């Protein structure tokens, strides 16, 4: 992970970024989001989208961040030069989840926790893999929820919601994940 090593050259930058965002307060918040940023990209490897999700073969895979961005430039660096399913990866940032049309993986920031019920509804059955670390996200209409147990980041997946959106999540991803609202 050359990018991880290179990012260590900018601890100050990350510290500044961490201070700038009140949601990332606590022990090494940037480290946590570094990991989550990588996970976000890894979802692209373990998820299949329906053919209708892409306009053509060259359409990039879009990873969106809704609400306050906890990743900053780091997310862009993670996906820089990488490809998923043969497609280039594009990072888009949205004010709110409801605006994330045409996005493939959407991270909903903690800042959105009061409005996610309203925001997720318009996305309806669009093939968007919604990811968040808002608590009970998987039970509130989201698909993948980050939660922390014994200092480790774990996944909670709502398969029903993913299937309703026409997404297929690899059984491999489900192996280490906790499943809610539907059986694999």
């Amino acid at each position, binding site marked *: 992970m050359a990018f991880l090593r290179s990012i260590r050259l900018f601890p100050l930058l990350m510290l500044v970024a961490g201070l700038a965002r009140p949601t990332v307060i606590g022990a090494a918040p940037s480290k946590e989001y570094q990991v989550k940023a990588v996970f976000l990209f890894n979802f692209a490897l*373990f998820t299949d989208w329906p053919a209708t999700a892409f306009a053509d073969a060259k359409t990039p895979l879009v990873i969106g961040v809704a609400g306050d961005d906890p990743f900053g430039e780091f997310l862009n660096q993670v996906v820089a030069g990488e490809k998923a399913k043969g497609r280039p990866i594009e990072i888009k940032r949205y004010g709110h989840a409801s605006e994330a049309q045409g996005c493939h993986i959407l991270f909903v920031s903690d800042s959105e926790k009061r409005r996610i019920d309203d925001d997720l509804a318009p996305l309806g059955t669009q093939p968007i893999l919604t990811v968040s670390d808002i608590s009970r996200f998987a039970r509130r209409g989201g698909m993948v929820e980050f939660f922390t147990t014994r200092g480790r980041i774990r996944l909670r997946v709502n398969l029903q919601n993913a299937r309703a959106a026409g997404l297929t999540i690899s059984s*491999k991803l489900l*192996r280490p994940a906790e499943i809610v609202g539907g059986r694999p």
Partner: protein
Amino acid sequence: MKFADTPIQKKLAIIVMLTTAAALLVTCAAFFAYELTTYRETAIRHLETLGQVTADNSTAALAFQNRDDAAEVLSALKAHPDIRLAALFDQEGKMFARYPREATVDEPPPGFSHSGFGLVDGHLIGLVQVTQGRDRRLGTLFLKAGTGEINKRLRLYATITLVVFAASLAVAYVTSSVLQRQISYPLLSLATTARAISEQRDYAVRMPAGGKDELGVLNRAFNHMLKEIEKHVAEAEQAARTIRGKNRELESLMYVVSHDLREPLRTIQNFSEMLGDDYADKLDEDGQHLLTRIRIASDRLERLLLDLLDVSRASRTTKPTVSVNARKLVDGALERLAERIRDSRAKVRIDDHLPDLFVDETWAGEAVLNLLSNAMKYTRPGADPEVEVSGFAGEDGVGIAVADRGPGVPEGQEERIFQLFQRAVSRDIEGTGAGLAIVREVAEKHGGRVWVENRDGGGARFVITFGRQQPKPEASHE
């Protein structure tokens, strides 16, 4: 035992077994070599598959940094008893999970970012790249397996090979010992028959005709030979019978002639004596002379008849043979010749060691006497007789040799001199020509023979043997 001396049955068995063993050895070696290479490949492929599956199952664990899940995936390897070590490394080569848990793996193996399997230091080593999607490398799986399973399998193969080898040899042995009878039995029976024939001289036996193979040909040829031999033996026996009959006739004729002719001869001698005694004054000088001629001739005739009688007796003797040292025979003869030896100043040299003989003592002594007496007649011109007596042992049996320094026997006369009344020398030398005939008769009667050879430096050497069945020297001290 040399292979050439081994019985044919054993020979056939050895040949079959060696051939079978050689073929089996090559086959088993090939089989084993094949198994060795293929099973290694199979074991490597097996490990490769296992590694691939494990790597595939580890992708999410690596991608989402779930060590527990990774450890669980790896622990499934316990189903494979030969796996010594399994370790997952992340993209940077940091140890992420391992199996068994207590294993110590600190350093990533060299070349951990490549895939490959191989046999290193008695272990199967494998590296599998953990990837998700087309070329997203998430980490590396390192596997190390013992060769216990391979060795177990190879031992099994070795055992099977040995069992197959032994069983094949056993089957080959049984089969060959049954089948080889086809060859060895006829040959053995032929050999047994041949031995029996040569020992018992029964030429009437026949081999079974046999089949059309070479053994059958051999049997038939053997039978044909036997038939021929039987015929020749019968002919020879017939001839021998005829000769024996003729001989008997001759012998009795000789006896009759020598015996019965003496009676009228004695009459002639008596009357001519009476004529000389009583009518000497009535006969003039011519008459006296004629009478002397008659008496000389009749004396000579008497000697001839006596010699003839001797020869006849020599051939008819049936006296049992005894063991006697030749020296005794020689001494006896010299005693009878003492006067002549003294008169002729003959020098007689006798070897210290003369052989023991198994003979009819009387006639053997007679033969020796005749040989000595004969030798004393032949000298160097003007010299005294020189006679040498020595032992003889050779192809023709045991006997003695008597040598002189006379003129030797003219070439071509070596046989003739032994015939009755045949002489090789002029009438200057006394004798009727019966002596050597008696010698020959005695020798042949004993199963021996007599011959003459000229000596280096002049002279003749007569050798008489008394057959080969002489007692061994150490067994005949009398």
